[in-house]
């Protein structure tokens, strides 16, 4: 038969791939360390005042000194982020499916969603404070507002990529709209959905911190604002580092979830790459 697959690469090729993979995995850490070292040296050489730009070692010392306080505030930030994110997932899925399956709803809702997404969320926080007071609720809502839009857009886009021929096949078998959605539409849009979760969770974190910076008495945002009013710049930077670390951690978490649930989408790509590459 002419259709053969599985052209196995030689062992030598496999090994060189592994070598490159190890370097690829280590590269972000290497870049981060090099940047910190350059920063440290530059600050010392040019004698930059600590209230302008503290050295990484000062920031690290501040992290250690305030670790208990930082942990409490970080937990608060993570809490509001996750609440906002959870609501964003539910709302994003529902609106995404609605917009992706109904042409009428798409026409009706999409311009409104775009308009809504264009409003800077910082501007909404004061309104939220008037309605709900300061603290957890406005932070969670801000997180929600930032996070749900990419989920809507991605789910809708996933549903829109269903091949019309495939829909014809199912319709000619007598499948209902709901059945086509369950058998094809939703599985097809899952890679888009999970990809959007990575973006959404980091945006939720941004939303939480924005709201905490403006109106809160807890959370990393509040901690940073407080520290900057006391000119404790190393602590401000420590807060920034914690936010960044949180962002990377939750992003990595959802990237893992993504490959677990929709491996077929990326595996297909890997197979194709390996099929054409070969060295």
């Amino acid at each position, binding site marked *: 038969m*002419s*259709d053969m697959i599985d052209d196995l690469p030689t062992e030598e090729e496999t090994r060189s791939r592994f070598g490159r993979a190890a370097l690829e995995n280590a590269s972000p850490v290497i870049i981060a360390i090099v940047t910190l070292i350059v920063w440290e040296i530059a600050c010392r050489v040019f004698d930059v005042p600590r209230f302008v730009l503290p050295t990484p070692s000062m920031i690290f010392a501040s992290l250690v000194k305030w670790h208990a306080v930082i942990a409490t505030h970080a937990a608060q930030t993570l809490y509001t982020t996750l609440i906002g994110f959870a609501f964003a997932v539910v709302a994003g899925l529902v609106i995404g499916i609605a917009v992706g399956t109904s042409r009428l709803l798409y026409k009706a809702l999409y311009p409104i969603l775009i308009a809504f997404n264009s409003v800077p969320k910082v501007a909404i926080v004061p309104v939220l404070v008037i309605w709900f007071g300061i603290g957890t609720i406005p932070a969670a809502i801000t997180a929600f507002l930032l996070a749900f839009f990419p989920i809507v857009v991605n789910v809708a886009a996933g549903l829109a990529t269903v091949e019309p021929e495939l829909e014809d096949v199912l319709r000619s*078998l007598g499948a209902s709209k709901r059945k086509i959605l369950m058998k094809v539409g939703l599985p097809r849009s899952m890679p888009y959905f999970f990809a959007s979760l990575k973006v959404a969770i980091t945006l939720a974190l941004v939303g939480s911190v924005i709201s905490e910076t403006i109106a809160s008495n807890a959370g990393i945002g509040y901690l940073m604002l407080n520290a900057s009013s006391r000119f404790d710049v190393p602590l401000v930077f420590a807060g920034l580092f914690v936010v960044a670390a949180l962002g990377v951690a939750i992003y990595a978490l959802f990237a893992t979830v993504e490959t677990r649930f929709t491996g077929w989408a990326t595996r297909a790509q890997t197979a194709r790459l390996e099929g054409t590459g070969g060295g």
Partner: protein
Amino acid sequence: MDPAPTADPAPPDAFVDIDDVSLVYGRGTSRTVALHHASIAVPRGGFAAVVGPSGCGKSSLMKLVTGLMPPTRGTIRVDGATVTGPLKIAGMAFQNPTLLPWRSTLDNIMLPLEIVEPHASRLRRNRAEYVGRAEALLASVGLDGFGNRNPWQLSGGMQQRASLCRSLIHEPDLLMLDEPFAALDAFTREELWGVLQKVWMERRFTVVLVTHDLREAVYLADRIYVMSARPGRIVAARDVPFARPRSLEDTFAPEFVDIVHELRDHISRERAAA
């Protein structure tokens, strides 16, 4: 120009009867006449091919017959009943195999069973029986043992074989094929002609094959309809008298080549007129 009108009256036992059908898309300036007074009749268990230049409304024909789209004028009857909505007894395959990448090949083939009754309600309890049926079908198209592969691990030709299996698993009475082999290389395509002929001879469902490959049409079909460029009209109908099974060798026989030439003449005349 010789229009060669094909006002052949539909035989009373026609399984697929397209009777004087016209189809118009859109309105105003974007109005296009896709089909114009087209009539096609395919007897039960027959194999009909529709050939024509690209953009002549061949694919519209597929949607009309399977009830995915209503005709603007005229009637379509399948198995004696006028088509008013999606058919439920049809299998379809297209140029693009459209397999679902998150399902194994076997699960892809079994997709129609999850939708068409009575299979959908029986599937859970009688899964082993249906899996056996799907595997037998895979074997008959030369995909023996490939059921648990993912579709993206299969070559284009193998995916098209699987797509053919999916269109046949629920044992449809009618198979609609829209240029199913057009994206394949010449050797694989000719191989699959043989596969399709074999499966058809075993099961004798009714086939309507839309194609622009004239050799493919003559090899596979009992009767070939030639369509003109838009607006699509049936300008000729030609019976293919050769015995079955036909072999690739037969496609080089003078009688075979004569029919291909005859069809080509019709089409080039249509193109010149357009």
